[in-house]
């Protein structure tokens, strides 16, 4: 990838060998190229739609696993057709994410749902778990599709379109294990060295990410606690209705209002149950994803630091060593480009990410507030109908003066 970029820089060759297509009339510097991507994000220009649904379990001799149907509709010219339907398993999503991060270490990819912490075989195929995962995978792919750079990735295209066999063989073609090892070793070495002169803006970013991570984790925990408390409230409330109903059996005049109250309490129970489900299905997944996002941001900042550390190390090496100066100078140039590229990519994507985060969290909280209003409105209606029934009852019997 980086070799291709260098070619781009030196030869003003606008076609990158990995197949991603960039506008040929663009300017040449990586920075301005990145800047191009901060633009049109409105729905009108959305030219690719991806859905993840229809989980199915597959049983083989070795294992049992779930696949999901991934459907794509697109008008993009680089796709051979306008509709695709493939089946993918979680591993495949992991692979895609890994490839995207490798290709763009300082771009911010939306998190995947976590791997299942093994509690037992059975739980992995629990309906709720699968549904929650499916929704998260759906969001993941959509975020990738909405990302100006990621969505142009060849790996992404293959993920969406290739038949299973094709995908498997493509996976095998990627940089080998050993080469990945090499990169990792270098990264670790760089990490050990540490960064000397981190630009202020990245330090500020890090501070923000730390704080954000804490806050969003707190919100996640608070919301989970609310769900727990509501579930416990629901358990107690569920006993109230039947108690009123039992009482009505001993009464004559009071039987009707008591039965009525029992019915009202039961209806409120149902509404409370639904409200709890809404919190779990809508707000918690979003908060949870942004907790993972915070981790992603930390990783991105670390990778950027490593790239800078690598550059700094090479600069130092050139200054101190005497032999192989030409190779070293070459390496240094590459490292410098890499760093510039990484920094600019991160800066642009950071702005984009903040916008997306703001939109996502705002709509999640607005949605939650709306659902809460709706919950109270429904309960209100229940009790008002009770009052109404007592009113018409009493007025009919001339019992109570309502004036």
């Amino acid at each position, binding site marked *: 990838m980086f070799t291709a970029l260098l070619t781009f820089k030196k030869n003003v060759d606008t076609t990158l060998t990995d197949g991603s297509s960039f506008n040929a009339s663009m300017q040449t510097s990586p920075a301005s190229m990145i800047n191009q991507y901060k633009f049109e994000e409105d729905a009108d220009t959305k030219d690719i739609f991806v859905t993840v649904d229809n989980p199915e379990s597959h049983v083989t001799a070795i294992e049992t696993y779930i696949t999901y149907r991934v459907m794509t509709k697109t008008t993009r010219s680089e796709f051979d057709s306008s509709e695709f339907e493939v089946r993918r398993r979680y591993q495949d999503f992991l692979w895609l994410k890994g490839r995207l991060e490798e290709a763009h270490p300082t771009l911010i990819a939306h998190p995947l749902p976590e791997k299942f912490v093994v509690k037992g075989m059975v739980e992995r195929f629990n309906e709720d778990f699968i549904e929650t995962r499916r929704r998260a995978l759906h969001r993941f792919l959509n975020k990738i599709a909405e990302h100006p750079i990621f969505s142009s990735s060849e790996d992404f295209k293959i993920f969406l379109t290739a038949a299973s066999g094709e995908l498997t063989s493509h996976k095998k073609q990627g940089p080998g294990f050993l080469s990945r090892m090499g990169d990792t070793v270098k990264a670790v070495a760089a990490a050990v060295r540490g960064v000397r002169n981190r630009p202020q803006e990245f330090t500020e970013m890090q501070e923000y990410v730390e704080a954000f991570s804490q806050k969003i984790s707190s919100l996640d925990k*608070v919301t989970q606690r609310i769900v727990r408390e509501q579930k416990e409230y629901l358990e107690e409330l569920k006993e109230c209705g039947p108690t009123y109903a039992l009482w009505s059996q001993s009464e004559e005049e009071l039987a009707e209002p008591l039965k009525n109250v029992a019915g009202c309490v039961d209806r409120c129970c149902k509404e409370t149950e639904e409200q709890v489900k809404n919190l779990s299905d809508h707000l918690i997944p979003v908060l949870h994803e942004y907790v993972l996002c915070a981790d992603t941001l930390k990783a991105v900042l670390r990778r950027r630091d490593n790239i800078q550390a690598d550059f700094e190390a090479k600069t130092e090496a050139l200054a101190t060593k005497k032999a192989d100066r030409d190779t070293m100078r070459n390496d240094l140039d590459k490292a410098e480009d890499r760093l510039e590229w990484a920094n600019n990519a991160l800066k642009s994507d950071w702005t984009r990410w903040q916008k997306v985060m703001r939109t996502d969290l705002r709509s999640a909280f607005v949605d939650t507030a709306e659902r809460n209003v709706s919950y109270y409105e429904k309960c209100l209606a229940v009790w008002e109908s009770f009052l109404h029934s007592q009113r018409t009852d009493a007025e009919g019997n001339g019992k109570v003066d309502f004036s």
Partner: protein
Amino acid sequence: MADSGSEDIAVIGNTDLTPSESENNLKNTMVEKGTSLLKKMEISVAEAEKRTGKNAVNMQETYTVYLIEMRPVDAASEGTNPVPDSLWRRYSEFELLRNYLLVTYPFLVVPPLPEKRAEFVWHKLSADNMDPDFVERRRVGLENFLLRVASHPDLSTDKIFYSFLTEENGWKETVFETGFQAKADSRLKALNATFRVKNPDKRFAEMKHYGDELQSVISQLLRVRARAADRLYGVYKVHGNYGRVFSEWSAIEKEMGDGLQSAGHHMDAYAASVDDILEEEEHYADQMKEYLFYADALRAVCRKHELTQYELEMAAQDLTSKKQQREELATGTIRTFSLKGVTSKLFGQETPEQREAKLKMLETQIEEGEELVKERNAECEEFVKSAWVDIERFKEQKDHDLREALISYAIMQISMCKKGIQVWNNAKECFSKM
């Protein structure tokens, strides 16, 4: 439901009540006005105070006294405001009054006192008798008790009750002078003993059964409600954490900051609102509790009726056996086995004089026995008549009061929902500015 001239002030239709209006409504809907005492006087338990003093075993104790105020009804309408008659009473004196009424009017469903110790508490409610909230709720309960008694057609005319309200000193002695304690002790013994009635009155048996069911179901309701209240408290309070975190988060954001900050305030308001909500619900719980204790009073009447009937049956049985003895003595036939009969057979008959003397004694006893049976029969009839009138009165009162309680519960829920709608709409607005 017969309207006995009561002026129930409407609770329904007005869902926005101030706390004092609400309390007034509670009072008025729970108690029928229009019986003799309350027509003339307004009674209230206005205040509570802590006192310390020496108790029966000469040890220091702290207790609470309650101020009972009486003012003539006319004064309010005339516009004058004379100083009310007032005196202080403690809970044990109320208990003494009630015990007196229970013994003196066993055929009446005597209004209950508020609970001696806090039960059905949930974590925020204190079980401590000295806790100010408990004292306040007790004050309201004691006032309610006095109003109930004062509006009862029979109880309101009782002299001891009247002097309870008017004579601070020496009242206790007056009560003891009535000798009700002796009656109380013997009654208590009798009631605690197990006895079997041969021909139980079906109506009373059903009433007693109803009393049992009512007590059981209201206890259950109070328990369940207290637990639910505890949980609801938790739900609301946790939202306060949103307030804190939103506030902290807003500090690191630029455009999102304001929206977050103000949303946080609404979350704090939401968390705080539960205190008022649950305080109102305690009112409702207290109304239910009153009828929980009323159920006990109802059962007591049925039990006392059983006792009365049993005593009648015993007297009748005794009379029958005495009559039989007389017959045997007169005709010389022994129908019933008696040791005297056997010994006389073995050791010789008694002299005619002895027999004469015995017969005479039996005649007297039979006469007395017939008087007793007549008395007891009249007593029983009187009891049944009076008790049944009061039970009917109680039934109507109960149906009315509990229906009003259910309605006020619905109003409370509506108020809670309205508050919720308001808070979350406000929060939504703030969130959309994020």
